[in-house]
């Protein structure tokens, strides 16, 4: 690719490399922002996922080892896909948190190394804000209520006065964690993701089994549902009949679990939309790539005279490009993360970030 400064002597675009590894996905992406219009162009978006065997989850130490082993390969691929030279890159963005400690640290160390090696500035990014900004950029949703649903987070968010404010959230485990752990009960494959395989199985489900429904105002809880779903799964595996004497299949349980937890998510989102008077809703995070959830959200939004915005797995599921994008937005407002402060943290709330790039 041509040198950006060659013809005019003035930069036409800014380029950031983003590194994400807060959970089992290692993602590195390169993004360019037009200096004048601010328009974002995805130059590359490479991801490598640590997939654990069916019936198990991913442990922090194994995941961290995976990220360390694949970082160089993924970074090289991202650079060659993007076709940019190291000299063209303005900053290195990395996930500061929230996430799993081990994997976060591995990637932060790698990002720091790149910054020192290439003499670039570092930008630490909040993972959740990365999801939100990428979702907005891809869908063009101006000021939506955001439902952020993944293996680690469940939040209903609305923007107000330079913060992404959390209106509702899961009181215990995240919805994606509930789905992931349910998948283990039936040893459903983790490849490409347990949630994806539950979604496919659920399409054959016919019987709606009663599960707890736990919404408290704009918050919700998933641990009780998981416990009950696991109990039912154990019964199905033993060949026992359901609570009403019906013959249940794993597909029925996947279907029932999805219908129940998604109804809860749509309900709390609707409440937040009514509260702030919004009609647009944006779904981000890995669970957001579920088509059934998108359809349910669409039906709710349509009734309120609005619409749902969602992205596909490239941007919904953790990726490096969203970290590059959100990091570059902050970089353009003058934000930097000095080397001595380039730490990472497991706890980092969405509303802690000062969103200087929005009005």
């Amino acid at each position, binding site marked *: 690719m041509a040198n950006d400064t060659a013809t005019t002597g003035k930069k036409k675009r800014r380029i950031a490399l983003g590194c994400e590894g807060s959970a089992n996905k290692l993602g590195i992406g390169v993004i360019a922002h037009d200096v004048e219009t601010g328009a974002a162009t995805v130059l590359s978006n490479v991801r490598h996922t640590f997939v654990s065997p069916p019936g198990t989850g991913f442990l922090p130490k194994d995941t961290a080892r995976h990220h360390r082993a694949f970082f160089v390969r993924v970074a090289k691929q991202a650079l060659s896909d993007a076709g940019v030279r190291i000299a063209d890159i303005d900053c290195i963005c990395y996930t500061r948190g929230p996430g799993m400690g081990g994997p976060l640290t591995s990637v932060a160390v790698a990002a720091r190394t790149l910054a020192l090696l290439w003499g670039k500035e570092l930008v630490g990014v909040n993972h959740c804000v990365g999801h939100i900004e990428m979702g907005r950029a891809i869908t063009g949703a101006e000021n939506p209520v955001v439902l952020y649903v993944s293996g680690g987070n469940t939040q209903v968010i609305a923007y107000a006065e330079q913060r992404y404010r959390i209106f509702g959230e899961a009181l215990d485990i995240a919805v994606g964690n509930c789905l992931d752990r349910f998948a283990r009960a039936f040893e459903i494959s983790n490849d490409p993701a347990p949630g994806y395989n539950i979604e496919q199985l659920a399409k054959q489900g016919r019987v709606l089994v009663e599960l707890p429904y736990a919404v408290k105002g704009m918050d919700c809880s998933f641990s009780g549902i998981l416990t009950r779903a696991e109990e039912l799964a154990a019964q199905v595996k033993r060949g026992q009949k359901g609570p009403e004497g019906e013959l249940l299949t794993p597909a029925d349980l996947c279907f029932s679990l999805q219908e129940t937890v998604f109804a809860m998510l749509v309900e709390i989102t609707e409440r937040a939309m009514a509260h702030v008077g919004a009609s647009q809703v944006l779904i981000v995070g890995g669970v957001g790539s579920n088509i059934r959830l998108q359809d349910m959200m669409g039906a709710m939004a349509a009734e309120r005279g609005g619409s749902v915005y969602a992205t596909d797995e490239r941007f919904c599921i953790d990726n490096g490009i969203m970290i590059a994008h959100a990091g570059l937005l902050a970089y353009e407002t003058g934000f930097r993360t000095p080397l001595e402060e380039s730490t990472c943290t497991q*706890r980092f709330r969405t509303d802690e970030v000062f969103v200087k790039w929005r009005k």
Partner: protein
Amino acid sequence: MATEFPLPRVLTYPASAPPSLIAQGAEGRLYKTTHLHADRPCALKYRPPKPYRHPILDARLTKARIAAEAKVLDRCYREGVPVPVVYALDAAAGWLMIEWIEGIPVRQGINEWLGERPEDDAPPAEDLDETPIVDLMKRIGQAVGSLHRTGVIHGDLTTSNMMLRPRPQGSEPEADAKKKAVAGDVILIDFGLATQSSSDEDRAVDLYVLERAFASTHPRAERLFSHVLEAYKHSFKKAHSVLIKLEDVRMRGRKRSMLG
């Protein structure tokens, strides 16, 4: 308000007065109509089916929620908590008919009292007699106290979910407009999120929700909130330990440290 929504069947019977849509929330719709007599106004809470939910799940939730709300209201009414009386319900059809409460929301009364007072919670003028507003705060504290004594948690206490019902005429000396704004009986409404519990924790969270809502709705009257808690403290035996728990809840806030 124009009724562009299809009416629930109960409102199409000739026995009820032509309904008017009063409010449309995320949960459902509130209509004003009459019950049995043309001169007996009532509120009809209707939870329409949600198209996004599986029909079986939708029917189950609607039925359970209408029934729960009616049960809580009935319990409160029998125990003397100031709430609307339940006239009728059809949980499966998703509606609940309750007493119509005349008057204005407490939020409006407080704002009328505060009027054009200077910003920033300035101390009141020397000559201003605060007795009427302080008295209202006490009535709020007593109402919430009686609710909690009954074993009910409201779940969404705000000054919009309390009404000020005027007392019968002639029962009180004529007051000026400002005093009138904060006069009347406090009636608690909207029990859509109510649960039954007698734990200090749940009661304290209920109070905390009210405290936060009060502070954000009436920042200029925030200092008056202490009178609510003071009256609450004397309203039932266990109120004291609830207020101690409230300290913990305040410290904790709504913020939960987030694990990735």
